[in-house]
């Protein structure tokens, strides 16, 4: 296999992820202000709370899913993987429709004559993160349960031994730290959630503070310092998460349930179904409301929506192409260097990369003239670790199964790539492309830093509409984002699997 492209890709990714540090270091002089430390404390606090609650509540839900068989269980487990594709800003919109000022909950409280609740502030940010990460935590922990061999449960049953201390607690001790660290790292880079539900001196994340420093104060030095701070936090958290590595980000074989001899009592059954029901309600209600309001808002779609949709699609396709090329090159390269390069974007958030690139290009060109390409580039980098995670094992399997036959037939270099490797990787390539394009379609990040008048992508347009309290129009745009993200994922994933070899 050709090695040179892999080397180039590794250098490129490392250059983009680490190279952005240089202008940050150069510009980011002076010390952090009080407000910056407040942002730091809030970022860490909300991430700790979000990760703790997600993991803590996921344990009973995962246990219920692990030991109960009911109609729709398989569908439910599949849906637990879907929030990864869900545009964050659409999720926030749905939560507003449930918990917001004019939301269902407050209407109900008002009808009962009770005081209203506000979703803005720390608890709102944590609820949103819980909504976004509870499914991931549940999947990771469910995997832990299903990884316990069925024979052990049978053995415990014949010995009449307590399953909790014997099997479940050791499993949880090994799975929970990794799940916690992964979600903690994800919550650190939260931008959209903090932008809409946070804000103000008491609920601003570092990511949001970077945005405000650049956008509202044109304080590039301050933004650079914040970006360095964010880089350090995220790097540490990503390193921790990789070190504790939950094994189960792939999620194969979640279809079966474990046969259990304990927990047959009525109370245990009722408790399990209650956990599953509550989790479903918490996940499905906001989503349903977002779709419902979106349908109502379709009539109010603003004028610029067609252009924004076109820009979003172009950015998503461009980002996907770059992600696939980089991921393929790195997967072929293999080895530690490629793995490191592939993991680097985990440490660099969208806005940090965006700030670094902004400082690099600002002296030479108008920011707005490069807004869309830079957005696509950063989206490509953000999706790279996930694409690589899907591609690498698939490529290794193709080589293991067909490598010697290809060697024996003299299929090397480009003809091996064209005739053997790419066709066999097509399903995985389709999946990775679907993932990358859906992520890019829903991502509000760099575009918020760079985008000028008439350059809005759909997520930015939606955020602007929400900022102007045009909630109906925003809901309509949100539905459009959701539909396009799912459509892109479906089209790529299906295209990859169509007529593929079994």
């Amino acid at each position: 296999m050709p090695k040179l492209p892999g080397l180039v890709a590794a250098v490129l990714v490392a250059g983009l992820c680490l190279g952005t540090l240089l202008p940050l270091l150069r510009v980011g002089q002076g010390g952090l202000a009080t407000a910056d430390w407040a942002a730091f404390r809030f970022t860490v606090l909300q991430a700790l709370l979000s990760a703790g609650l997600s993991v803590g509540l996921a344990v009973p839900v995962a246990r219920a899913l692990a030991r109960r068989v009911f109609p729709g269980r398989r569908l439910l487990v599949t849906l637990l993987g879907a929030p990864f594709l869900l545009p964050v800003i659409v999720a926030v919109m749905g939560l507003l429709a449930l918990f917001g000022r004019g939301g269902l909950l407050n209407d109900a409280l008002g009808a009962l004559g009770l005081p209203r609740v506000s979703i803005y502030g720390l608890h709102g940010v944590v609820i949103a993160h819980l909504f976004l990460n509870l499914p991931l935590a549940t999947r990771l922990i469910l995997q832990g349960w299903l990884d316990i061999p069925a024979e052990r449960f049978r053995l415990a049953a014949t010995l009449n031994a307590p399953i909790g201390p014997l099997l479940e607690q050791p499993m949880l001790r090994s799975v929970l730290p990794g799940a916690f660290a992964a979600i903690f790292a994800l919550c650190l880079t939260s931008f959209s959630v903090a932008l809409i539900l946070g804000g103000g001196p008491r609920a601003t994340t570092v990511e949001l503070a970077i945005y405000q420093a650049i956008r509202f104060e044109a304080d590039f030095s301050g933004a650079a310092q914040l970006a360095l701070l964010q880089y350090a936090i995220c790097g540490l958290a990503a390193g921790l998460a990789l070190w504790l590595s939950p094994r189960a980000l792939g999620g194969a074989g979640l279809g079966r349930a474990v046969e259990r001899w304990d927990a047959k009592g009525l109370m245990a059954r009722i408790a399990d179904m209650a956990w599953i029901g509550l989790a479903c309600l918490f996940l499905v209600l906001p989503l349903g409301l977002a779709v419902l309001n979106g349908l109502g808002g379709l009539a109010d779609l603003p004028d610029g929506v067609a252009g924004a949709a076109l820009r979003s699609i172009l950015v998503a396709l461009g980002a996907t192409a770059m992600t696939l090329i980089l991921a393929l090159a790195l997967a072929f390269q293999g080895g530690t260097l490629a793995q490191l390069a592939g993991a680097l974007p985990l440490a660099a958030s969208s806005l940090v990369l965006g700030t670094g690139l902004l400082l690099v290009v600002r002296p030479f060109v108008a920011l707005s003239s490069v807004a869309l390409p830079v957005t696509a580039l950063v989206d490509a980098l953000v999706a790279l670790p996930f694409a690589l995670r899907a591609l690498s094992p698939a490529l290794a399997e193709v080589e293991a199964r067909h490598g010697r036959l290809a060697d024996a037939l003299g299929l090397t270099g480009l003809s091996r790539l064209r005739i053997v490797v790419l066709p066999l990787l097509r399903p995985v390539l389709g999946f990775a492309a679907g993932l990358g394009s859906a992520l890019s379609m829903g991502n509000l990040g760099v575009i918020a830093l760079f985008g000028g008048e008439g350059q809005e992508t759909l997520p930015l347009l939606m955020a602007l509409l929400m900022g102007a309290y045009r909630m109906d129009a925003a809901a309509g745009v949100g539905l459009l984002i959701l539909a396009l993200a799912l459509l892109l994922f479906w089209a790529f994933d299906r295209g990859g699997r169509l007529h593929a070899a079994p």
Partner: protein
Amino acid sequence: MLRLDGLELAQGDFRLRADLEIPGGTSVALLGPSGGGKSTLLAGIAGFLKPQSGQVLWDGRDLGPLPPGQRPISVLFQDNNLFPHLSALQNVVLGLRPTLRPRQEERARASDALARVGLAGLEERRPAQLSGGQQARAALARVLVQERPLVLMDEPFGALGPALKAEMLDLTREVLVRRAATILMVTHDPDDAAALAEMVVVVAEGQAEAPRPTGAVLADPPPALRAYLGERG
């Protein structure tokens, strides 16, 4: 003529030595217990495994510098002999040229080869649409069109039932032995050796012995092989 000149192969901790000659046009069975080094030897000859020392020579020419695809060698593996995403015809065409769009004449040759192994009319089927026996036949058709003088087979029909296996061994003898190809077949079954091979190379305990006529070896096995075969009625 295949000559293994002081060949020493290593795979992990395992080491295999071979110093022997196999006359051109003979069919030879590599016989011995599993873990004895049969497949290692085949991988060394095919070029998948670089020798620690010594040489693999074909008609006096050192094959060392040649990658597997450029050696005068066709290989039949135990399984995964066909690419699952390609039709039977495309799989066979790859034996002629690394392309998926064969010229008229290449297409005709591949088609003929498929007909000779009994797969006429099944050109467009994918491996998943063929039975196990038909897949083995398609792989054999590719070996046919390659027309390379040395054919290496690593327990090629191991996944088939006894009747199908006997049928495939017959077919192999018919299409390859008649063409005067030199055949090296790895097997752990002395009946396979008796069915196909004129000579046997006993591979056991990290050592490949010089070839001897099949009948003589099976009638009076050397100690290493005797322990593996047990007492046979």
